[in-house]
């Protein structure tokens, strides 16, 4: 029995080590005083300091954040509309085509999406003079095209689970369809909207392939800056940057986890109350 427990813990340990050891090493080496990435030269936080002085990286980080927020918001809006159409309007002409077009970006190779976007933007610029070069606008448009598919899938499954009689009841009580959607449907599917927003935010903030096609001079996103720096050799500065990103993501996951747990506890408590009164 004891041996079995030991074996299980070892397996668990090895699994975690495989997943997280590289990240832990990266964080440790971000505090390396030496410029050489592979040689430990004592503890220092100077690379963090240098990072703050690197105008280029700060600009790129700000741009990435901006793109991610705009993208997540637009994708959530459009993706929700698409999901409502797919779930609530069962029959309309071109439904199959619509479903296919919504889900295609999920399986389309990114490199093709990126190339196609670039071609589109260039020919549009030639034809109408818009978009004016590669900028935040083009990055956001490109990101929305693939993020919105993910939002649609998430919201669609939540909508399909929702008891349709809730909407019917609201209508029966005198609310018009638009009001029913705003007052009943939207609050009930809100968690899915939030999940979709976070998902498209994440997808956008770490995208390299598509972004590399649609960025231009003066509008470089953070992953692209990191990527181009790494090509010239890994610098401790990048380690520091990566560690900050890891820290932000970890805090985010922690907060999300605590929120979910609290919600679950609330739900269980109210269920118990209900059962006691039953």
């Amino acid at each position: 029995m004891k041996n079995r427990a030991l074996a299980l813990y070892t397996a668990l340990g090895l699994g975690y080590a495989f997943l997280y050891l590289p990240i832990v090493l990266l964080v440790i080496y971000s505090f390396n005083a030496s410029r050489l990435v592979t040689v430990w030269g004592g503890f220092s936080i100077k690379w963090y300091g240098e990072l703050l002085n690197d105008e280029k990286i700060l600009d790129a980080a700000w741009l990435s954040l901006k793109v991610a927020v705009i993208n997540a918001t637009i994708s959530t809006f459009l993706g929700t509309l698409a999901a409502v159409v797919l779930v609530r309007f069962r029959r309309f002409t071109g439904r199959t085509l619509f479903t296919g077009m919504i889900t295609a970006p999920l399986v389309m190779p990114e490199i093709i999406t990126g190339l196609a976007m670039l071609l589109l933007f260039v020919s549009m610029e030639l034809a109408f003079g818009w978009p004016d070069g590669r900028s935040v606008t083009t990055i956001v448009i490109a990101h929305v095209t693939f993020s919105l598919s993910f939002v649609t899938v998430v919201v669609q499954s939540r909508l399909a689970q929702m008891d349709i009689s809730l909407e019917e009841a609201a209508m029966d009580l005198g609310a018009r369809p638009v009001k029913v959607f705003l007052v009943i449907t939207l609050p009930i599917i809100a968690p899915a909207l939030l999940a979709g927003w976070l998902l498209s935010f994440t997808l956008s903030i770490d995208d390299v392939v598509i972004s590399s096609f649609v960025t231009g001079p003066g509008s470089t996103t953070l992953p692209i800056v990191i990527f181009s720096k790494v090509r010239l050799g890994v610098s401790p500065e990048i380690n520091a940057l990566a560690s900050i990103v890891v820290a932000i993501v970890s805090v985010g996951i922690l907060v999300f986890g605590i929120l979910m747990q609290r919600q679950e506890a609330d739900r269980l408590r109210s269920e118990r109350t209900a059962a006691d009164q039953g």
Partner: protein
Amino acid sequence: MALPSAKPIVFSPWNDPDATPLIRIRGVSKSFGDFLAVNNVDLDIYPGEFFSLLGASGCGKTTLLRMLAGFESPTDGRIFIDGVDMTGIPPYERPVNMMFQSYALFPHMTVAQNVAFGLKQDGLSKKKIAEKAKEVLDLVQMSAFSERKPNQLSGGQRQRVALARSLAKEPKVLLLDEPLAALDKKLRGQTQLELVNIQDRVGITFVMVTHDQEEAMTMSARIGVMNAGFIEQVGTPVEIYEYPATTFVADFIGTANMFDGVVALDEQNRTVVDCAELEAQLTVGHSSGVAVGAPVTVMVRPEKMTVQREAPQDGLNSVHGVVSDIAYLGDISIYHVRLNSGRKVQVALTNLRHTSEQRLTWDDEVYLTWHPANSLVLVQ
């Protein structure tokens, strides 16, 4: 001296030729693709009535109810509520409210907000809304829970809130879709009578859909028995049990022993049926109204038969068989008697005496008899 026309003691507007129905359903059909869910239904429902649509699942009763609410539109025919043609009128503009089988309480709103929802849509003042919500919550004894969320309530409490919410707008008609199906048996029994009391107090016309015949018979003034999209019979609980119009209704409501035969004699107060299976003639105490030789079915309820060990002397309406199964239910026992033809007949006897010994036991030879007035001829 002319007597003032007596007010009917029993509520029965359907027998009054001057009464105006609140709901008039005229030739309504509904098909989904090739499937005909509701087939040419005509029905009148009167103000203040508690009307039930009873039938097995898939018989079209829920579709008919949803057409009254406006969630489905008839493929054919028209529905009038209070004289107004409902064709093309959306659910949010109809003078009806519905109580859903799943209750459909809004999970993100409190009990009070749920009840106030419909009143808010009417644009009443905040004070009016609060007053009215309190009034209906008092009616269902749920005022103490007004700040709770639906997931903090038990099944019975949710059912009350759903009822309060659908009554809050004082609709002309309240539609109830299997309102008690989610409750356990004991609670269901109490709630049935409570619901009838509430209906009596608010005076609103109730139209209920149910698959539970006991529920329908307990609660309703009249019942419409549905089968395969048709309304087979509309009548009071007594009418549909004692005088079923078709073999389907006879079989669906309670238990019926049915014998097929042909009419041998048809008189004003008597029909004699030749029953080949029993090798006997059965006498029924009313006219069948069909020609001699027409195929008919004779129906006798299990509790209307008497059991005796000796052959009856007059030999009228008597069948002979052997007890093959006994179901002891406490208040009554049901005996399954196998006839000579191999066919089984059910007889119900009340267990009047407090005794451990059964009057009849397995393999006893018995004669079953019944009075002609207690049987019925059903024309096929």
